[in-house]
């Protein structure tokens, strides 16, 4: 038996496996396939202050070992989210890592405040701050590409939430220096980091000779991006080890389909792992990956999951 428990800042989790935001809806759908309370945490779809319709269709294009999506943050808005989705997760006994988004730093703060004030806040083990969305005040440049804008969002969200609720800034790999953004978020009060979000891409429909997605650009995800996730985690972990900024836990995400894939992210420095696109292929993927990871660690003779976090550094 491998001890799979892990502590991410103030969050004590029985295991390191999670869903990825936007790849698991808000719990009910996957509960037809497995008990969502069995996950380390259930990460919800990024929610904004008001209901949002998202983009038109086509919203997806299959690409080699991955896909492009342009959902456009469709969601019910924070009030309906806490009343219906969060209440359901609470009744199911799940630990919720709630992903929030905004088109201004003030909107992030408002969403965090509404979450804190909700009756079901007890189910929340942490908040993931999806800063990979466009900042209306800066001509739609995503917050995560700008260290100052990222830091402002993190600081405002931090103010709204009790100290024992960790916040994780979710970083975009589409930047020149991801460690610089990570440093800005940690200095602004992030308890941890989630990386990576999708990479920007375009697919062309060569029959119609036009972009395949209605929204033209989309986010690339799936096994195709796993090496990018491993690289990003590696670089940020190394920067922490070098003392460039305070060491905080990293939640790894990007291209995980098997327990071996998860171990790659962990060995590069992740303390927990999310499974996203692979869930579309196999609804049980997050739980299956947990079982595979545990079996792999057992076979390799480890007693505890925490022994392998960042193990590939300095070997």
């Amino acid at each position: 038996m491998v001890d799979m428990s892990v502590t991410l800042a103030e969050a004590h989790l029985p295991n390191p496996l999670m869903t990825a935001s936007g790849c698991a809806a808000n719990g009910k759908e996957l509960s037809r396939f497995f008990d969502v309370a069995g996950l380390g945490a259930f990460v919800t779809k990024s929610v904004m202050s008001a209901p949002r319709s998202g983009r038109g269709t086509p919203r997806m294009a299959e690409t080699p070992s991955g896909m492009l999506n342009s959902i456009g943050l469709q969601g019910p808005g924070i009030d309906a989210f806490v009343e219906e989705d969060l209440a359901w997760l609470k009744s199911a006994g799940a630990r919720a890592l709630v992903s929030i988004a905004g088109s201004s730093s003030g909107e992030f703060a408002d969403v965090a405040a509404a979450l804190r004030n909700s009756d079901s806040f007890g189910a929340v083990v942490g908040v993931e701050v999806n800063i990979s969305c466009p900042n209306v005040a800066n001509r739609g440049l995503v917050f995560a590409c700008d260290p100052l804008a990222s830091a402002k969002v993190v600081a405002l969200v931090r103010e709204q939430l009790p100290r024992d609720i960790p916040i994780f800034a979710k970083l975009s790999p589409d930047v020149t220096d991801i460690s610089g953004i990570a440093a800005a978020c940690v200095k602004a009060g992030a308890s941890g980091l989630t990386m990576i979000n999708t990479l920007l891409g375009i697919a062309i429909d060569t029959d119609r000779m036009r972009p395949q997605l209605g929204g033209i650009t989309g986010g690339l995800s799936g096994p195709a991006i796993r090496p990018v996730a491993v690289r990003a985690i590696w670089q940020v972990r190394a920067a922490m080890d070098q003392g460039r900024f305070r060491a905080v836990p990293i939640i790894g995400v990007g291209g995980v389909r098997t327990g071996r894939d998860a171990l790659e992210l962990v060995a590069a420095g992740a303390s927990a792992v999310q499974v996203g696109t692979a869930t579309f292929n196999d609804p049980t993927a997050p739980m299956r990956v947990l079982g595979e990871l545990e079996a792999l660690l057992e076979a390799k003779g480890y007693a505890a999951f925490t022994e392998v976090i960042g193990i590939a550094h300095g070997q």
Partner: protein
Amino acid sequence: MSAIPNAGVTQVAGELIATRRVGAYHHLTLVAPGVAELARPGQFVALAVGGSTSANLLRRCFSIHRVSPSGTYGGTVELVLAAAGPGSTWITELPLHGQVDVVGPLGRPFPLPNEPVACVLVGGGYGSAPLFWLAEHLRERGCHVEMVLGAASEDRLFGAALARRSADGVTVTTDDGSAGTQGWVSDVLPEVIRRTGAAVVYGCGPMGMLRSITEVATREGAVAQVAVEEAMACGIGVCMTCVMPVVGNDGRTRMVRSCVEGPVFRGDRVRWDAFADGYCVVPEDAVGAPPASGGH
């Protein structure tokens, strides 16, 4: 494989036990224990393609043609598909006794009328696949059932012979006149509705056809129930790729997931005005729609 009791859905390793060419299409029979017992006409299954290391991750969704809950091999599910892309080609090239991961049944089935009213079932191409099974259920309830099958050409019609057994009357149309009446299903539909006094028109096929079925049915005073074919990545409601604008009971339009709230919708609830040229836009009056561009 599936662990949750009473979930109404199961995930199983399906086994291909029969395959047959039908014109331009492939008719497959899979042993998929659990799926057949739960399925209703109009529901679909989502298949994973290419095995566990496949580079094609997205599920392929197919309407269920028919089920046999207690075959010699256990419950079977039959599908009709065209080899259109790499995923469906992989499925059609599966060897006999080859395995494919099946999730189903998924989506909402066709609603059945409480009274024994006359119904017209309209299918375009292999879209007709679920209609024969639906016809059986309707006739069991005492409904008079007529079918209208349309396609570009005779080899793209599915089930014209089957229809003669499943329905009380059959009308066939082809664009090129190679079988039946030359023209579209919408050309012959008004006469069939009037002659039978149909209260419900069920439709399955391409979006453009579903739109015209809805228009004809509404004009003739019948209710249209249409099963849409939207691109789906997961089939189980978690990806939000399959949305389309549909008017709810409160009269407001929302972008709803066709895999969970559909694939069957009342035709007059679908915002057909939002579809054009392979795109679907978010109607300006939809809940949560972005403010109209052009500034304020």
